[in-house]
């Protein structure tokens, strides 16, 4: 068990330390660093989904004044390692998905580069492509494991026997569409190559991860690569490392000495920087007369790219959510001629829990039970997947507190029972979960600057979540000083190594390192250090990891209003109650949860990347066509925390809140829409077209 530090700063709702810079436009984002005479990069993207480039004619582009170079597989610098085909940019003739970079223009202005890119003539030997995910494909396969290292399939008890002999059962298929992350700031890079040193100003979730991969792919010493990422305008899983960054680095190598600026357009954000796979999820549940689940299965079909596998873990949350004697979960993939899918905020949990929590709502109705009560009745003692006790599990407290705050008591369970004017009104609930993830390898360095001030350094990164503030609070408590005395420095690989911002792991991984460095610092230098005193320490793995199952939980409630004439859905009210350990900063945490629940609403009602299978790419590739909610779509959010002290997870007692906000929201809304209308939409998003009868 970890000893929790005395908390003075942790738990305080401090305003963002970087707030004034952000709102005055002085916080520099990667693309905003100023250089004299930069070159601008604009890519040429494949117009076939599969085939080979037979000819590149750069003459018209190259003849434009201001064009410096046209790169293609014919003349681009060679990469040292092309084993990761997603990153093997401009190395071969092969085209593996539509939108793949097949050439790029470097020019003195962005406008020239863009226009010149449109003049590069590319000829293809086009081959038939296959981009359609269907559950009845004959070529589905079982990956070795699913994201990140979960078993592909699990089986407890005898599902088939239990399910076939049950009297109350459900067998339904739920589908979720392809979705794209679209952070407000697109992927941006300024790359500079000179004298064997590569420097990137990069919009990334992991400066060190970018450094290591770039060094390997380019075949240079990691120590000669520097990544700078002080502020990042959102990532959501898309800003790990994709072909765009490799292309920028390649271009910089090609024009040694000139800074190369590369910012993706919104349209380019829809090919090649990741997306959430569409899913087809069959769920079967059976229960006894007492409302206890007797059998549960969750069989998922997803897509991946032929050039690289990503296996979304959509059925994984079903392994831990509810008690059931007999359980089976499976994942199957179709490898298609498509860009590589990737982590997208709550990968696995977001689509998987839409399916499971919709099915739980349907099953509660079949059992004649209130959906809150049905969930409580199936609360497990131990984590079924590992057989371990939970370090803390307060799902029931979340459901009860959420029900109290939302005014759930006395709800008429009949669908389409409540109408106000032309609005059909309903309410719904769903559970949320997300695992506690800690990546090993983060290192923090603390030095005493004199005058009571401490410099805390590590190459962590704030992708908009409030990391600048939360890590300062953690450092203050770790050193037992005021937050004002912490000079935090993050976002640069000249600082000690830090793991990526992903898996809701940032605070756990980095905060643990800061606590460890503070302990070493005080052991070595005491409470009155000399100026310049310094200590560095790495976060160890969690010794409790083998003893407990560690997850955050939550409950989401939603009211839906559906126009009886048009099928328009409005969500005036949502409540979210979360048990996520100690909340480091309730103010920034609330913002993250608002963002998460908004995303859940977006997933429920709006987001869908429409692929035209004839062409192989996303057609609605801008914000006119790919909808996210506008302000007018968002009503009241009531967000609350269960006071949870978890001494097993990390020295802060915190569990990570970056992703859990999205997880239950989509199902809560789908369940509320059913309650309002009597129409069960099992295929997201829930659009007017699906509600018009």
């Amino acid at each position, binding site marked *: 068990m970890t000893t929790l530090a005395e908390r003075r700063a942790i738990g305080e709702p401090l305003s963002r330390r970087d707030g004034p810079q952000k709102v005055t436009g002085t916080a520099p984002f990667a693309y905003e660093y100023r250089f004299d005479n930069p070159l601008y990069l604009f890519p040429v993207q494949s117009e076939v989904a599969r085939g080979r480039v037979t000819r590149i004619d750069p003459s018209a582009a190259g003849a434009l004044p201001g064009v410096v170079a046209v790169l293609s597989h014919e003349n681009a610098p060679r990469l040292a390692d092309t084993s990761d085909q997603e990153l093997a940019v401009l190395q071969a003739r092969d085209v593996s998905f539509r939108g793949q970079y097949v050439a790029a223009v470097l020019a003195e202005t962005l406008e020239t580069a863009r226009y010149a890119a449109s003049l590069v003539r590319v000829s293809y030997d086009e081959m038939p492509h296959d981009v359609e995910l269907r559950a009845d494909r004959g070529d589905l396969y079982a990956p070795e494991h699913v994201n990140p290292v979960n078993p592909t399939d699990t089986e407890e008890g005898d599902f088939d026997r239990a399910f076939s002999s049950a009297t109350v059962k459900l067998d339904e298929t739920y589908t979720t569409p392809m979705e794209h992350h679209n952070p407000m700031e697109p992927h941006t890079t300024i790359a500079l190559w000179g004298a064997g040193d590569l420097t990137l100003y990069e919009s990334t979730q992991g400066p060190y991860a970018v450094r290591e991969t770039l060094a390997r792919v380019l075949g240079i010493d990691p120590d000669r690569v520097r990544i700078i990422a002080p502020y990042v305008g959102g990532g959501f899983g898309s800003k790990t490392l994709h072909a765009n960054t490799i292309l920028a680095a390649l271009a910089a190598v090609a024009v040694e000495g000139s800074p190369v600026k590369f910012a993706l357009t919104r349209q380019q954000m829809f090919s090649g920087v990741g997306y959430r796979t569409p899913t087809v999820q069959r769920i079967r549940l059976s229960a006894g007369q007492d409302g206890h689940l007797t059998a549960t299965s969750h069989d998922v079909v997803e897509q991946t790219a032929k050039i690289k596998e990503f296996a979304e873990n959509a059925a994984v949350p079903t392994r831990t959510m509810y008690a059931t004697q007999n359980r089976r979960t499976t994942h199957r993939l179709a490898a298609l001629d498509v860009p590589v899918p990737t982590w997208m905020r709550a990968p696995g949990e977001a689509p998987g829990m839409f399916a499971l929590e919709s099915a739980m709502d349907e099953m509660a109705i079949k059992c004649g039970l209130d959906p809150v009560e049905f969930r409580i009745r199936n609360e497990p003692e131990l984590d079924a997947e590992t057989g371990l006790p939970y370090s803390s599990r307060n799902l029931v407290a979340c459901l009860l507190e959420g029900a109290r705050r939302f005014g759930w008591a006395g709800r008429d369970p009949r669908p389409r029972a409540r109408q106000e004017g032309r609005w059909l009104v309903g309410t719904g609930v769903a559970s949320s979960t997300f695992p506690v993830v800690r990546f090993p390898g983060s290192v923090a360095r603390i030095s005493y600057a004199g005058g009571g001030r401490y410099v805390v350094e590590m190459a962590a990164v704030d992708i908009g979540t409030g990391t600048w503030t939360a890590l300062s609070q953690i450092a203050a408590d770790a050193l037992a000083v005021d937050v004002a005395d912490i000079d935090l420095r993050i976002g640069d690989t000249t600082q000690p190594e830090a793991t990526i911002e992903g898996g809701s792991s940032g605070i756990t991984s980095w905060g643990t390192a800061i606590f460890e460095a503070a302990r070493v610092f005080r052991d070595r230098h005491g409470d009155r250090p000399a100026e310049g005193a310094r200590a560095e320490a790495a976060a160890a793995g969690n010794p409790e990891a083998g003893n407990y199952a560690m997850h955050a939980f939550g409950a989401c409630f939603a009211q839906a209003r559906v126009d009886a004439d048009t*099928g328009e859905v409005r969500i005036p009210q949502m409540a979210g109650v979360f048990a996520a350990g100690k909340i480091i900063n309730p103010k920034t945490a609330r913002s993250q949860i608002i963002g998460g629940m908004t995303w859940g609403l977006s997933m429920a009602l709006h987001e869908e990347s429409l692929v035209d299978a004839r062409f192989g790419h996303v057609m609605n590739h801008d914000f006119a066509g790919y909808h996210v909610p506008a302000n007018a779509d968002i009503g009241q959010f009531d967000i609350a925390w269960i006071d949870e002290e978890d001494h097993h997870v990390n020295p802060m007692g915190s569990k990570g809140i970056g992703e859990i906000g999205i997880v239950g929201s989509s199902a809560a809304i789908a369940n509320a829409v059913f309650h309002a209308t009597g129409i069960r939409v099992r295929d997201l998003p829930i659009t*007017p077209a699906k509600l018009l009868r």
Partner: protein
Amino acid sequence: MKPFRFDRAGDISGAVATLAREPAGEFLAGGTNLVDLMKLGVMEPDVLVDVRRLTSGEIEDLPDGGLRIGAAVTNSELAADRRVRSRYPVLSQALLAGASGQLRNLATTGGNLLQRTRCVYFYDTTTPCNKREPGTGCSALEGCNKDHAILGASPHCVATQPSDMAVAMTALDAVVVVRGPGGERRIPAAELHRLPGDEPQRDTTLEHAELIIAVELPPLAFSSNSRYRKVRERASYAFALVSVAAALQVRDGAVHDVRIALGGVAHKPWRARKAEDALRGRPAAEESFRAAAEAELAAAVPLRENSYKVPLAGNIITRTLLDLTGAP
């Protein structure tokens, strides 16, 4: 973006004369649509002739009780005008249902009428599109077409006209005043946009170098009893799935007169004359509204993904007319 020449004429005739000499030129007003299309390479004019400051920015009373709206009046100004709000609420509501505050501040009356379709294939220069490149084929016919036309489409194009304002103006029998190389002419709003036929590259009946200089709203005794209903997939900042602009006059419980136009269903704002004709003299009640809507929509030919538009259009015609009777 393809390089272009920027020209700012001194007056309207100068602008018209300039563009008449430039077959690949375009007028530029608010630029909220044209500049986007140029960035994407969908439109590649050689010359832009800035007309923003040439046409009137005023809304004037006409002697007959109507209004004359200068082509440079912004969408924000037009929506906020007291006369428009009291005499033609359907127009103000249509404007406020479109775009965003920022865009409405920049977009002009003339430009709004001429905004181009939001068909995803029109916007993607890597796919065939008869409107963008005549003769290449219509990708939407068998593709992503949930937003596309159910009325008046052709095998060459199933795109829809996106302007909300144009739908309201069509219902109000507005007149579009244009100046071209041959002088001035007046076009009924319902005849400004056209059906695609075999020339989907032509959105409107305007000839090259014809400039919209004003829109006139004729007086209509019952236009104050009008409203715009727009259905979209989110609460704001989205193009219509289907919209309806309607004005209704009831006498002794019967429909004395009515105007109905639909948006999001065709290559032009769809004046629902069949429904109007079916309604005059009928009881102002749900049953006749529904029957009139069905009469209008009998000609609908839905595509694979947009059959929902037929019941949706029927429902909002019925509901909007009911609302205009003051029914609960």
